């Protein structure tokens, strides 16, 4: 029972981060801030979800796989965000300022 | 039931000789034409071996992997498959000889041509021999992709756009066919043609599947009004490719349509048959009229293909009656004779184009001085296209006329005869050029003898096919693909 409650809380929290990230993606003013919102929120959101699922996992191997998935996504989204930001800079898009 | 293949598995060699050849032609690009010739030799041998087997022992069935339908995939060879295979073999072998002269050794085009052509041959043989409707989908895709790539080999803008339109249309046709496969599997749980044939009936799923498959295959066979892709693709391709496409590739999808119509589709209604017949008749008229108005020789020949394909579809309305076997036999005779004649025409047109440097009909007058044999070949092939005796075209039309009268639908004789007159008009339009006064002496290049002889050989074969009618029909009868009517009933 406790483990299920923990999972539910973690999944809901993760979903909250995804929601916030998506809102940021839609509402933030320029490509850099949008990237920030997207990757940051998604990485944490996915981490929370992975943790929530790991609580339910039946073996250490499964937990390892979940952790690996999260790490790979972190790596990929960080690199992806970097590449998008770099190509935006090269195109001459100025970061948004107040 | 057919005998399980005994002795030498020629049926396997018929598919795998060109396939192995295609791999080696890719591995050894510098020796591609040599590989191509060897593979053509092996393939022809395998086809002859299989024909002998079918003549001696009757239809063959081969259980791939030893499983047997419905779990496994079977190959089958009956009279109909073997006649198609043989036609493809004769045209393929001849075009191989022609291509050794057409493409410069180890040029970029030659390197592209040989593996693609061997793939095309693999696809056709696999298609004629397959007994499984999903496997047939894969062979259809092999066929379209290799045919499209072959059109693009010439590399100019016309060829590329022609190839692209051909690809899009063919993929659409394949998808439509595939949807039919899905519905048939959903309704009956098997993919084998023979097993499926016992299960199909008048249910909505079977009707829709039938409609999807007929539409898909009619697109691929360029049935009017879905023919628009054919002339640009066939005309822009290199000459040996044009010959292969017009003589064989469109007939491969027609063969599949015929096979499914006979064995799988729920008892065909007269309505569908009549509709296909009307479209066929329209194709004859429209294709011929367009051919008459073309300014380029190769486009004229390509529109002639649109018209001639119309004849094949005239068998559908005739076959809903007692004259069915006669009608189908006429249709297959037509496939054979048109394949030979059209190969001759495209090869001859290719020779003329090479010798004069262009194929603008208005400026071809007097051009016969350089490629005389090719002009003769074109004229002789014209005899069969017009349907004059004793050519194969004549006997094919004769058999169809018999079917029309025997089935009490005399009106179908009108497009058969009218199409011959129209064909005469566009053939004479070209042949007359040979008798035109010699024009300004343009630059003319010589054409390798074997290219001219190949064109001439096919033209003569198309005319002589008339004398082989009985042999072809008795071979066709093996396994009675059209039901019980022998060759003697036809003539």
């Amino acid at each position, binding site marked *: 029972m406790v483990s299920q409650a923990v999972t539910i809380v973690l999944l809901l929290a993760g979903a909250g981060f995804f929601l916030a990230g998506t809102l940021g993606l839609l509402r933030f003013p320029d490509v850099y801030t949008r990237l920030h919102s997207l990757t940051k929120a998604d990485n944490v959101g996915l981490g929370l979800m992975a943790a929530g699922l790991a609580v339910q996992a039946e073996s250490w191997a499964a937990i390892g796989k979940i952790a690996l998935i999260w790490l*790979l996504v972190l*790596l*990929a989204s960080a*690199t992806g965000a*970097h*590449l998008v930001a*770099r190509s935006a800079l090269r195109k001459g898009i100025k970061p948004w300022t107040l | 039931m057919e005998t399980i293949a005994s002795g030498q*598995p020629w049926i*396997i060699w018929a598919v*795998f000789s060109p*396939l*192995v050849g*295609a*791999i080696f032609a*890719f*591995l050894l690009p510098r020796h591609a034409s040599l590989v191509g010739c060897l593979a053509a030799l092996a393939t022809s041998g395998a086809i002859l071996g299989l024909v002998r087997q079918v003549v001696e022992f009757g239809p063959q069935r*081969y*259980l*791939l*992997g*030893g*499983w047997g339908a*419905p*779990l*496994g*995939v079977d190959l089958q060879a009956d009279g109909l498959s073997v006649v198609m295979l043989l036609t493809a073999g004769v045209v393929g072998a001849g075009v191989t000889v022609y291509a050794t002269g057409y493409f410069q050794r180890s040029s970029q085009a030659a*390197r*592209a041509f040989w*593996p*693609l052509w061997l*793939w095309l041959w*693999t696809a056709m043989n696999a298609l004629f021999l397959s007994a*499984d409707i*999903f*496997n047939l989908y*894969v*062979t259809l*895709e*092999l066929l379209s*992709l*290799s045919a*499209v*790539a072959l059109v*693009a*080999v010439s590399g100019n803008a016309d060829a590329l756009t022609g190839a692209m339109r051909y690809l899009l249309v063919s993929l659409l046709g394949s998808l439509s066919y595939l*949807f039919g496969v899905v*519905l048939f*599997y*959903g*309704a*009956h*749980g*098997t993919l084998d043609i023979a097993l499926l044939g016992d299960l199909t009936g008048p*249910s*909505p*799923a079977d*009707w*829709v*599947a039938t*409609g999807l498959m007929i539409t898909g295959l009619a697109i691929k066979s360029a049935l009017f009004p879905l023919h628009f892709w054919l002339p640009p693709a066939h005309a822009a391709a290199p000459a040996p490719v044009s010959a292969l496409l017009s003589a064989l590739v469109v007939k491969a999808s027609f063969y599949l349509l015929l096979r499914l119509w006979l064995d799988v589709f729920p008892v065909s209604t007269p309505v569908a048959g009549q509709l296909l017949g009307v479209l066929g008749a329209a194709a004859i008229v429209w294709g011929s009229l367009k051919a008459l108005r073309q300014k380029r020789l190769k486009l004229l020949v390509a529109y002639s293909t649109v018209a001639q394909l119309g004849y094949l579809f005239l068998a559908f309305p005739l076959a809903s009656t007692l004259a069915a076997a006669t009608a189908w036999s006429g249709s297959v005779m037509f496939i054979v004779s048109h394949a030979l004649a059209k190969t001759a025409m495209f090869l001859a047109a290719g020779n003329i184009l090479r010798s004069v440097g262009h194929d603008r009909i208005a400026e071809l007058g007097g051009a016969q001085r350089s490629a005389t044999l090719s002009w003769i070949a074109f004229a002789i092939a014209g005899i069969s296209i017009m349907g004059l005796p004793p050519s194969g075209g004549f006997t094919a039309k004769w058999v169809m006329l018999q079917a029309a009268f025997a089935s009490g639908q005399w009106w179908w004789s009108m497009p058969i005869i009218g199409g011959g007159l129209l064909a005469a008009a566009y053939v004479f339009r070209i042949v007359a050029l040979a008798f035109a006064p010699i024009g300004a002496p343009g630059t003319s290049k010589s054409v390798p003898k074997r290219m001219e002889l190949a064109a001439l050989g096919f033209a003569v074969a198309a005319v002589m096919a008339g004398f082989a009618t009985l042999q072809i029909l008795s071979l066709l009868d093996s396994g009675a693909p059209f039901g019980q009517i022998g060759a003697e009933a036809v003539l």
Partner: protein
Amino acid sequence: MDVMSLAANWTFDGLLALALLWVGWRVLASTNLFKGIVFFIAFGLLVALSWVRLEAPDVALAEAAIGAGLTGALLLAALSRLRRRQDSAQASDQPLDAETSRTARLSLGTQALLIVFSAVLFVCLGTAFLSLPPLTPGLGPQVAEQLSASGVTNPVTAVLLNFRAYDTLLEMGVLFLALVAVWSLSPAPAQLVTAPGSILISFVRVLVPIVVLAATYLLWIGAYAPGGAFQAGAVLAAAVVLILLAGENTMPAGSTWPLRATLSLGLGVFVAVGMSLMGMGRSFLDFPTDQAGNLILLIEVAATVSIGVTLAALFLGGQPQRGSPK
């Protein structure tokens, strides 16, 4: 199953189906081609999810790796080449192609006709599907019955590499043929990416070994769990594409023979195994039960390598030129 979870299932499947349709429509109707392709990749992932719901994890893997991943990469590469050429064409005052102009100038009548036709087609196909018998067993029971003789325990692999191995052989042929055809069309464009940057390069260095490991795992596990040569090949192709993107792509000068041999390996081994079995008096691709597992593994290993390299070569979009950067 209780009512709650049944309702949850229905809701999930219904929402997913609606999402498929909506995203599919966005793919086709988006004004900007780049957006359309991004939607296409998202669409592919939704399709993969649908396959999981349809209890077809093998297909889900294939769809995610090939349908969404590689097809998406092919489309993006093609788009960027289109735009690059367009930019240079624009500079030389050639007619500019506006990719935002979406439809042919169809007359209103034609468009209405097309819509009516589509609607009729939808109704016909729907009726046909609804008329299907609800419980036709298909070939499932026969596959289950013969599974123990197939040499593998994953039924999908058994169908692909044993019962219908001939289909798969021809399918490898289609892939091989596509490559021959693409090579016959054009030489490979010189370079894909300008200055990949150090972060991308180190990312690739970390990732490629993991990806290759994942491909090996998928290949190995395909015998008894979802996975197999095509999924593994697609993952391997992703590794090669990554290397190409990072610019570490010089091919040794000289012959293209080793590359050609690698590309033909899968098909060649497949045919050779089939022929050898014929030489032993069996029929083509008729594996002896005790050796079936090993022979299937042999074919799959060769196939995986060839599929990986072929898909990556298709991504490259043309024949690599001798001695020049691959």
